[in-house]
């Protein structure tokens, strides 16, 4: 509201801060899109540019992360709310044979790679657990967009790719619930009751969403306006309560989404709230950028490159196996693997969580690592998809 004109030199506040942040994110994304770089890391880059570590360092007006924190949190809640909305337990059960094997391979190949990397680079057990998650989770946003842009969406490989992404959503919901409890730290005796409360809260949300959503649906469904505002209110209140009891706001948002997704309102909600999610997600990605010091990212370059060199092929392998489990040819299985390489929004959500850790090494190294890693993997992954023909010839996987 009132912008203190006497505020510290070079800091933007309120409305102007938000506007400049979004403008920076969108401008960088617009430039990058011309050369085919996915937008998620570019939004982050936009945030880096107007953040205290770049703009601030050269004496230009910059934006403090705290300025847009709440809006960034809304972005996280809506991202996970949408995952929940698209998540269908029936669909998962229908494909369980192929999918459970593919999901197990995906988890047990990629998560340990991340854990090993975390331990190797001296982050300790908690840090390794977080790096495991960052390395494990593929980017639904980047991958889905590439599938559509390249027309792979009409090919058989779309099925295992989207199947694995949906299964990962469920894994990441459980993972985030655990990670939030673990990151808060403290002795096991202190932590246990807190973890119990947090998990209990999330279970209650999941159950309540299943039971109450069908009843809440009619009053919310009167007009589009009521629908949007009402859904937003429910999602934010539940997510906010989750935060206040030390549970993951993102996972709470996920379960609210699952509840709404099971009602007939599903399609309308998806349609009306998508633009809202897109807008707030940009704020979240740019906020990650505000927190990022490019020098710190450069400092973990060796870590990022090692992770890329190991986890890229690991995803290729697990995705390839998923393709085979779905009965696809070697060439289509290779494409399944390539498609699953990009990492993005969820790795950044885990990074934002790591930044709150009381362990200074974890709080400093992991966010910087995650930003560098997502930049590299989303770019390499989408590039690999668009160059799939060449890679197939290179590897000799060509259909006769």
């Amino acid at each position: 509201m009132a912008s203190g004109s006497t505020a510290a030199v070079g800091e933007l506040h309120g409305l102007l801060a938000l506007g400049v942040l979004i403008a920076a994110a969108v401008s960088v994304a617009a430039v990058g899109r011309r050369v085919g770089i996915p937008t998620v890391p570019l939004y982050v880059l936009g945030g880096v540019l107007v953040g205290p570590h770049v703009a601030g360092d050269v004496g230009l007006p910059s934006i403090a992360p705290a300025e847009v924190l709440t809006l960034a949190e809304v972005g996280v809640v809506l991202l996970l709310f949408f995952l929940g909305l698209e998540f269908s337990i029936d669909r998962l059960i229908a494909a369980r044979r192929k999918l459970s094997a593919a999901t197990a391979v995906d988890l047990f190949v990629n998560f340990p790679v991340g854990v090993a990397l975390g331990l190797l680079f001296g982050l300790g057990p908690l840090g390794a657990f977080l790096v495991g998650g960052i390395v494990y989770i593929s980017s639904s946003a980047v991958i889905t967009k590439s599938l559509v842009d390249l027309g792979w969406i009409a090919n058989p490989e779309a099925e295992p790719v989207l199947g694995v992404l949906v299964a990962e959503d469920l894994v990441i919901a459980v993972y985030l619930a655990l990670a939030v409890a673990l990151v808060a730290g403290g002795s096991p005796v202190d932590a246990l009751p807190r973890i119990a409360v947090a998990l209990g809260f999330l279970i209650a949300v999941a159950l309540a969403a299943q039971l109450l959503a069908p009843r809440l649906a009619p009053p919310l469904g009167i007009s589009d306006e009521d629908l949007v505002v009402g859904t937003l209110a429910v999602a934010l209140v539940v997510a906010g309560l989750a935060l206040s009891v030390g549970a993951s706001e993102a996972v709470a948002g996920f379960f609210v989404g699952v509840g709404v997704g099971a009602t007939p309102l599903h399609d309308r909600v998806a349609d009306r709230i998508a633009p809202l999610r897109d807008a707030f997600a940009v704020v979240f990605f740019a906020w990650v950028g505000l927190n990022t010091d490019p020098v710190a990212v450069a400092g973990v370059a060796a870590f990022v490159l090692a992770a890329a060199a190991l986890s890229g092929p690991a995803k290729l392998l697990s995705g390839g196996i998923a393709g085979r489990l779905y009965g696809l040819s070697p060439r289509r299985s290779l494409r399944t693997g390539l498609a699953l390489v990009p990492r993005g929004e969820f790795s950044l959500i885990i990074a934002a969580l790591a930044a709150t850790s009381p362990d200074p090494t974890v709080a400093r190294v992991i966010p910087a690592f995650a930003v560098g890693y997502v930049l590299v993997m989303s770019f390499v992954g989408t590039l690999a998809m668009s160059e799939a023909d060449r890679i197939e010839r290179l590897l000799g996987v060509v259909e006769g």
Partner: protein
Amino acid sequence: MTVYESDLPGVGKKHEIEVGDDERLVIVTHNTGRREVFRRRSADSDAEMLFELSDGLARTVGTVLEGAYFQPVATDSIETVLGDDALIEWHEVPADSELAGETIEAADVRRRTGASIIAVEHGDEVTPNPDPGAGVGAGDTVVVIGSREEVAAFRAAFIDSDGRDGAAADESGGGADADAS
């Protein structure tokens, strides 16, 4: 012909339609309503995008392909087959038709042809289940239901009178399968 339907989580739905030996038409319906239509020549080849349509356009194109598109265009007629024998046809009433300027009752449609008029479209205004006393003007479109013979009799009596170009309506049935390979 088999149609396969599958979900595309986060994107929408996919329908695959067998159109040849191995060839399939793949239609991706996005959650936004946008349709993308692809052709896949064989199980192993990549889908090539043929075209994409907005939601509204896709519905119109679909109606045309279905043969049920309802728009008064001179001498054009459209039919919808109900079961083996019954069908519904749309006809614009020519100025020289006996029906032009008459009521349905006066033209004695039912008794002379066996077919019934179930709707009359006058400009943008549609009268479903018109009264026998309802008038029909030249340029109006009438929707007729009956057996093949009855509908043909209706055409002969009221639409193709005075040797206007013959029963050109009959070929509009199953022309939508793009079998060219």
